[in-house]
């Protein structure tokens, strides 16, 4: 059990490419923090620096009260789950779990006890004598988790552990990881590019872009108040629509948009904040052409082109039949309170 503190962490590769451009982050003891961002944003590099697999170019990394910048991965008291699991192919599941303990000089009975305990927790007891190649993807995933568990480390590091699983299994393992972490209360740092995974797993999210932190907060904070256009576009699916203020101003009868914070020239609207019936609160009215109707069961996605601007926009509604036929005009309403004001140039939220 330990906290993890990152102070001004930077990673510069030979050749001057800066992958991580100064990260400050304090992860509390027992917290589940998810690093999320598009590929190439430096999230994996950051995780690997915490693990000790990449050197830290600048900054201080503390696990607990120890500065661990120069320590080998094994000395940092962390355990890591890899994307491709990295199970030792020639060892049985039992030996895969036991290897780290053996290297640490544990006695046989102690190893046996810990392996049994972890295997029981992950329900892989029946596979202990098998080789990894005789396991399914989900079972391998469990073994990889088990290898991290047996060590009872101060922190778990997960590097996109679910991305090799099929959709159904991914949801199931997501729930299990969450439950496991709740039960063990081990500090965890989890890297993913899947915003749904990030939202559902994390106590806190860290949204990264181009080697820098865009926003840190609880999933709902980030969803409800994205700090920048990048975060707004990245979190939430379908992505938030971005409409220029000038366009919307011409669409509202009253001066509803006059009180937007200074500097606002673009507003974001979530696809579910666009309604097909007028709300009672003050709202905007926009006409559009329905281009495509996508039924996804409990919800439907309407792909529309706005009248007078041709901008493609997505609306999310409850399931059911299309309100109008494709190609026909569709009128929708946006409550004033649902607008997220941004400045286009700085990309930041204005208020």
């Amino acid at each position, binding site marked *: 059990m330990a906290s993890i503190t990152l102070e001004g962490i930077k990673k510069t590769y030979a050749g001057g490419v800066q992958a991580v451009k100064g990260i400050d982050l304090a992860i509390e003891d027992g917290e589940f923090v998810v690093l999320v961002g598009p590929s190439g944003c430096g999230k994996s590099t950051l995780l690997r620096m915490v693990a000790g697999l990449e050197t830290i170019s600048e900054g201080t990394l503390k696990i607990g009260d120890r500065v661990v910048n120069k320590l080998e991965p*094994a000395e940092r008291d962390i355990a*890591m789950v890899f994307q491709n699991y990295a199970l030792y192919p020639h060892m049985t599941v039992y030996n895969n779990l036991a290897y780290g303990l053996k290297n640490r000089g544990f006695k046989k009975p102690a190893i046996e006890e810990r392996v049994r305990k972890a295997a029981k927790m992950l329900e892989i007891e029946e596979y202990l004598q098998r080789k990894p190649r005789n396991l399914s993807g989900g079972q391998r995933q469990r073994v990889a988790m088990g290898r991290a568990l047996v060590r009872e480390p101060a922190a778990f590091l997960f590097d996109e552990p679910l991305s090799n699983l099929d959709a159904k299994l991914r949801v199931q393992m997501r729930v299990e990881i969450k439950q496991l972490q709740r039960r063990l209360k081990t500090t965890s740092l989890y890297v993913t590019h899947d915003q749904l995974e990030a939202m559902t797993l994390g106590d806190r999210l860290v949204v990264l872009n181009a080697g820098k932190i865009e926003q840190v907060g609880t999933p709902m904070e980030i969803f409800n108040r994205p700090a920048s256009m990048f975060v707004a576009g990245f979190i939430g699916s379908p992505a938030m629509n971005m409409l220029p203020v000038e366009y919307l101003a011409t669409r509202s009868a009253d001066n509803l948009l006059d009180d937007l914070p200074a500097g606002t020239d673009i507003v974001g609207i979530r696809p579910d904040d666009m309604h097909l019936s007028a709300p009672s609160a003050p709202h905007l009215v926009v006409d559009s052409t329905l281009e495509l109707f996508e039924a996804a069961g409990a919800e439907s996605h309407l792909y529309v082109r706005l009248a007078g601007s041709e901008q493609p926009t997505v609306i999310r509604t409850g399931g059911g039949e299309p309100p109008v036929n494709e190609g026909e005009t569709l009128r929708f309403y946006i409550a004033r309170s649902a607008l997220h004001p941004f400045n286009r140039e700085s990309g930041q939220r204005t208020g």
Partner: protein
Amino acid sequence: MVENRPFLNILTHAVLILGVLVVAFPVYVAFIASTHEPGAFVRGVLPLTPGDNLWDTYSQMLGSGWQVAGAPPLWLMLSNSTIMALTIAIGKIAISILSAFAIVYFRFRFRLLAFWIIFITLMLPVEVRIIPTYAVVANLGMLNSYAGLTLPLIASATATFLFRQFFMTVPEELMEASRVDGAGPMKFFKDILLPVSITNIAALFVIMFIYGWVQYLWPLLVTTDEDFYTVVLGIKRLMASSDRVPAWNLIMATVMLAMVPPVMVVLLMQKLFVKGLTETEK
């Protein structure tokens, strides 16, 4: 391909059987020749059925050799060849797997240079550098010794190169996982990398064993003492008796026996091969 054309089936099988006959017939003739008395083979008509001299021929070759031609007993030459081939194969694999390990897994200065230097020695097989190598071995007093027979042939760019290529396909995460699990470099090498490359080692062992077994030029140069003759040299000596009718039965018996160890190695290692091919990891 699912095709049901009986004519094609017959044709392909005929070609296959023909191929097998072409390859196997000389071996068969050699075996037959080794079972007849000395003169049978030079009379003009090849006998195609085994003779009754098998026991005599083989026991003479294995036991006392053929002193007239200056060939030592066959068992001595066979054991010399075995020692030489084994030392070369094991030495080559040990050295090249370690150097490939260094080149792939360690970041040190001039790493690439080291690799290219090793790679360039591909262009310098023993035949090219035979005179200087002979001089070195002679000056070190290693003529007529197993060290002289094997050492100059051990350093191997091919094997290093193959291991390097293989190591680069081993997922890096295995190394990282073992680092997190507290294994140092040599422990990783011993516990993870060696077991993972066992099928490659087996393949190279077969190739290198046969390479060592068929060496002719180098043993010819460095051995003058009969105690260090290899079996390939022995065959040559038996044939070289120009003023006599070659004793084909004895020569062929030597040839047959010389084939046994390489065939054994291939057969034994083939099991590992097939295992490695059918049960691929990852």
